[in-house]
């Protein structure tokens, strides 16, 4: 649809492009970030992304906070799956401190992390549907995200900004209700996911809206620093859980779904398959957790008295635990000197923590490698020449989370 199709009569108005401000508070951006689009009719000529509207200087704040006080900051990175960020942070600290984590804790963490991954992908995939005009799926799956949040609630007391777990393990053992809810989830969710899948996967309208739009080649994706489902949709089987297993992921049997074209449809399919794989992992992890009997079934944290708060009944009755409680809360523990990079497979890809400690009580420098921030720069390349409506779907299928982008 260019000049050859539309012949302007002599002396008519000049052909001009339109500038459209998409965001920062636009219902279709699903987050506070801006795109200045140059449009020729409905086609995107160029785009300029602006980020930073909710920048909160976490890296600066972290330089004055003790390790456990940084966990709530990580909640606010990717707020669709905060437990993944929390766990990534705990594991970074544990790597720095050289803590040995019991197997049961690893498995419990895996359960929580995979639940978080499901809730993350669930939101992303259903939002892609919403942006393509299919609201049903979104409403339908929301009650299962609610169930996931209820499980978080049983474990840590919070729903959205979870601050789940502690350095060394969890703040308390999982209670029976948590396990009951988990069982309910494992029982009911596959059916729901199947139904959700049926709404989209072979839906003609959905396929035509998403196939071939927002595509990126594997080579370009790697050059742009893509990780996570977006990279795998382009055909690269890179997954931190397999390449650098943490939290005993090597004990689980699962596969990495990959796409071929890197377009919106493949991204949707990869996320969808990953949810099935996450379910598999949760089932295995739950089984492994159940195998612990007696005293072993009571283990929910590592033995790390300098970083793990002593039990409350001892704090109120004994001197030493009280002192430790006080020292930990006031952040009076010096960290070992070191420089550590640890990454986890978060909802959007490789979430890295680069922590430098000079032996003080707070990090000397903490840098977050935020997958979203890195791959959002490819957005212009992805949407150039496509329709505005495709650009919207591309934006949601990249799963751009403003909190993660701006840190």
């Amino acid at each position, binding site marked *: 649809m260019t000049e050859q199709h539309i012949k302007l009569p002599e002396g008519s108005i000049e052909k001009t492009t339109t500038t459209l401000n998409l965001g920062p508070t636009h219902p279709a951006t699903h987050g506070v970030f801006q795109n200045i689009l140059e449009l020729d009719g409905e086609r995107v000529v160029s785009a300029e992304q602006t980020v930073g509207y909710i920048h909160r200087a976490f890296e600066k704040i972290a330089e004055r906070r003790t390790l456990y006080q940084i966990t709530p900051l990580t909640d606010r990175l990717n707020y669709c799956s905060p437990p993944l960020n929390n766990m990534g942070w705990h594991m970074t600290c544990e790597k720095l401190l050289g803590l040995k984590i019991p197997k049961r804790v690893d498995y419990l963490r895996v359960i929580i992390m995979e639940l978080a991954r499901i809730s993350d992908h669930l939101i992303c995939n259903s939002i892609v549907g919403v942006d393509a005009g299919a609201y049903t799926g979104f409403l339908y799956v929301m009650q299962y995200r609610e169930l996931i949040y209820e499980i978080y609630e049983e474990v840590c007391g919070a729903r959205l900004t979870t601050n789940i777990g502690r350095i060394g393990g969890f703040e308390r053992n999982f209670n029976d209700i948590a396990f009951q809810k988990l069982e309910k989830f494992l029982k009911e969710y596959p059916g729901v996911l199947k139904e959700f899948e049926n709404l989209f996967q072979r839906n003609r309208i959905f396929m035509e809206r998403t196939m071939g739009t927002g595509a990126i080649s594997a080579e370009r994706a790697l*050059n742009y620093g893509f990780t996570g489902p977006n990279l795998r949709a382009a055909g690269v089987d890179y997954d931190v859980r397999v390449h650098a297993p943490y939290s005993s992921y090597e004990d689980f049997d699962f596969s990495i779904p990959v796409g071929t074209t890197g377009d919106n449809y493949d991204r949707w399919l990869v996320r969808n398959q990953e949810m099935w794989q996450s379910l598999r992992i949760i089932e295995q992890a739950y089984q492994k957790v159940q195998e612990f009997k007696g005293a072993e079934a009571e283990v929910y944290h590592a033995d790390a008295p300098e970083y793990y708060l002593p039990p409350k009944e001892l704090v109120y009755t004994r001197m030493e635990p009280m002192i430790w409680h006080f020292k930990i809360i006031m952040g009076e523990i010096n960290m070992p000197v070191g420089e550590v990079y640890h990454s986890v497979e978060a909802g959007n890809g490789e979430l890295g923590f680069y922590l430098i400690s000079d032996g003080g009580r707070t990090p000397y*420098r903490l840098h977050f490698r935020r997958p979203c921030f890195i791959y959002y720069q490819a957005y212009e390349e992805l949407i150039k020449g496509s329709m505005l409506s495709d650009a919207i779907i591309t934006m949601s299928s990249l799963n751009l989370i403003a909190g993660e982008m701006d840190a």
Partner: protein
Amino acid sequence: MLTNEIVKQKLVEKFAEQVTNFGEPYGMLTFEAPKEMNLKVLNFLYDDERLKFRFLTDICAVHYPDQKGRELAVVYHLHNMQDNIRVRFKVFTDIEKPDVYTATGLFSAANWMERETYDFYGVKFTGHPNMKRILNVEEMNYFPLRKEYPLEDQARIDKDDEMFGRE
């Protein structure tokens, strides 16, 4: 299988004593080069048939106010996905003349990472296509993550173990 030793050996072979300060904190090979060399080293790591560090994981900066003449460190994290090995490469620069060559020619991903580094530490990347602030407002006239802008210290140091009858 590529190991840290081989990478180190290759680098020393190519750049002799210009690559320095080799270390392996927590298993990741870390080394340093003069800042004029950064592109040469990155290119070598990228192009060499054996090394193939073709994924840029991260770029960030660190401020060491006490090191005169080398106050700012630019840290590159690189990843060879085939052999699944990472390296950390650092260049140090004077805070008075914080010019470092850009890696955008090699990695498209470096674009925003370098802008972020500039935004917070004022490292100027020579040759960058769009060297301006990214997360902060453009009117800002200082680089907030430098150590001369301290936050209130929440970790108290006015009490020590002696007060609790220990040590």
